[in-house]
């Protein structure tokens, strides 16, 4: 059972990374990214291929995921930066589907719908599964801590103020002389990089990735995590992520109390409850549990 709790905590950390990434572009810069699962997938495949196919070390795989996914994010931002919010929503959603289709189809590269199995993990096979899980949890938590520190730094810095200004009204920011496009691209790239690292870690942890893992539902989980935790607030992102993982696993056990349902019905109820929860949060507490506290500047 402890192994199971450790695994859930690890998934919590990975979702926390995703939520932090989303917070950077949406909470802090006002750009919605409904295609975040596409960047997640991209990072996962980069690292899986680098380590499994090319035999490189895990560190290289994760670093590669960070850099390449950030690059993809930058490209995406360049192309879409001028779009209005809801258009951006459509395009980013489409992007994640295109990533999934490409992963499903380019069998020579990604092994298609069968996925990539046996992805190496840190010391996997050389230690017992229990020790491996523990090592990975520490690793994932460390990465979350680093990401959190970096993003908090950004938030409290002049850079973060510019991003918030762009979020609140990018025309004003432009008039104030800020090169809005550059800021947007950088924020999107950094965010995408974080999402890519999360994807890489996911692959190394679960040892298996396939296009079917990277469905739009994951994006909804993360949006729920951020919205429930508190959009704009990095701690909110982390808290929200753990809440969502907890909620998902509770529903897995809870449906055991409804034995008359068939497995597909149980799965439907669980997915449905995620969507419904997001709607409830959007309706009744859109600022989330830990609302954003605008950092006040010290008045001398």
């Amino acid at each position, binding site marked *: 059972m402890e192994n199971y709790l450790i695994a859930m905590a690890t998934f919590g950390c990975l979702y926390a990374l995703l939520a932090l990434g989303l917070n950077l572009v949406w909470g802090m810069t006002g750009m919605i990214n409904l295609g975040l699962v596409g960047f997640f997938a991209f990072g996962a495949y980069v690292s899986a291929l680098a380590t499994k196919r090319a035999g490189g070390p895990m560190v290289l795989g994760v670093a590669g995921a960070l850099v390449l996914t950030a690059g993809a994010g930058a490209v995406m931002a360049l192309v879409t930066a001028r779009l209005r919010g809801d258009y951006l929503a459509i395009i980013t959603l489409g992007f994640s589907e295109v990533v999934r289709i490409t992963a*499903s189809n380019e069998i020579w590269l990604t092994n298609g719908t*069968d996925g990539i199995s046996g992805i190496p993990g840190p010391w996997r096979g050389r230690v017992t599964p229990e020790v491996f899980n523990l090592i990975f949890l520490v690793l994932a938590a460390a990465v979350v801590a680093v990401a959190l520190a970096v993003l908090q730094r950004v938030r409290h810095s002049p850079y973060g103020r510019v991003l918030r200004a762009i979020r609140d009204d990018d025309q004003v920011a432009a008039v104030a002389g800020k090169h809005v496009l550059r800021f947007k691209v950088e924020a999107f790239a950094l965010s995408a990089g974080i999402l890519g690292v999360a994807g890489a870690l996911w692959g190394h942890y679960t040892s298996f990735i*396939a296009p079917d893992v990277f469905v739009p539902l994951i994006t909804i989980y993360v949006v729920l995590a951020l919205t429930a935790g508190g959009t704009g607030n990095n701690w909110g992102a982390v808290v929200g992520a753990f809440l969502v993982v907890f909620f998902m696993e509770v529903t897995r056990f809870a449906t055991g109390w409804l034995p008359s349902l068939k497995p597909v019905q149980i799965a439907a109820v669980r997915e449905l409850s995620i969507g419904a929860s997001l709607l409830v949060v959007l309706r009744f507490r859109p600022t989330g549990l830990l609302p954003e506290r605008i950092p006040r500047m010290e008045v001398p």
Partner: protein
Amino acid sequence: MTAQTHISRRMVLTGAAAVAAAGLVPPRTWAQPAPIKLGTLTPLTGAGGSYGPSMRRAMEYVAGEINAAGGVLGRQIQLVSEDDQTSPEAAVRAARKLIDVDRVVAIMGTWASAVTTAVAPLCWESKTFLTTVSGSDTITQLPHQGYLIRTQPNTHLQIGKLADFLISMKARRVFVLSAQTPFALPSQRRLTELLPKGGGEVVGAVIYDKDKATFRSEIDQALRAKPDMIYLNGYTPDCTVLLKELYKAGYTGGKVSQGYAVNQKLLDSMPAEVSDGTYAASPSPAVESAGYKRLAKFLGASDLDPYSCQCHDHISLVALAIARAKGEATGTAVRDTVRKISQGPGVKVDSAVEGLKLLAQGKEINFEGASGPCDFTDIGDILDCQIKFEQAKGGKLVFVKMI
């Protein structure tokens, strides 16, 4: 000034989570010796959904028989069942739960090759024994260190017999339409290699994503190659659509598929003239064996699918291996002893109950299952298998030949 104890919402939430999680740990029963937990992971839903429930029932049957006769060395077998949904992703999550939460000795019954490929690393890394009915060559070639056996003939064997059949049917121009699976490319290649020996050839091949609702373009591609035989290398849902579209397109040539795809459920879902003439290949279970007959009686069917028979054998083999290992109920013990009870010079038995009795008397046994002799190579493949070829006529499958 005393410091305020600020119980933040965050603390309350994490506390509640910890309490709830602790409450999920089941209470221990001290009355009997601990049961032996075995996991079943079958496709209760999804493309393999026609077989999963019956595969599970076959395993429940054997577990029931063993438990009624006193269990394995006094310990009852407890089955924990999960649905792999014929999806690698769902299977990995379910396997994680079986391994980490339920701590099963073995996972039995994975059906789709993609599912088995995904679950296998979890099993061998956690030293959980995996028994599967998947056929792809690539599976036994994984570095499973012996933690995997399968009772289904592999692709190499299956396609070899298919090629023999097609040659005997005088097929000259064969087009291969495969769903994306681990065995798509190996099947294609093997068929391309074997057909010319009988004067035929593979005139084209397409690998498609099976989660679509229409395959119009793939059909167009196939028909452009003017085949006289199309091999539908997919699963029931996509083969259903393919057969309908072939009919609409006016294709009158031959069609051949695997029995797990073109089965009675598929035939029932379409008018007879759409499916008529389609050949179906299935590994033939050991219909003469006592084990098969007992299982057929229990499941209430005269004609059993090969997978339920194989699952009957899976759980029998695992139980006998544990007994042979003097009750050591671990995946490693099963790996080390399974071939000692599945093949070799011991007394031939066809039921786990009988085998357990003989083992208790110190005798060696050789289990012969309902699916076949159950003799395994070093990497976990079965040595040989008979393949039965049938043809759809008037909405029913009619026997053609056995190869």
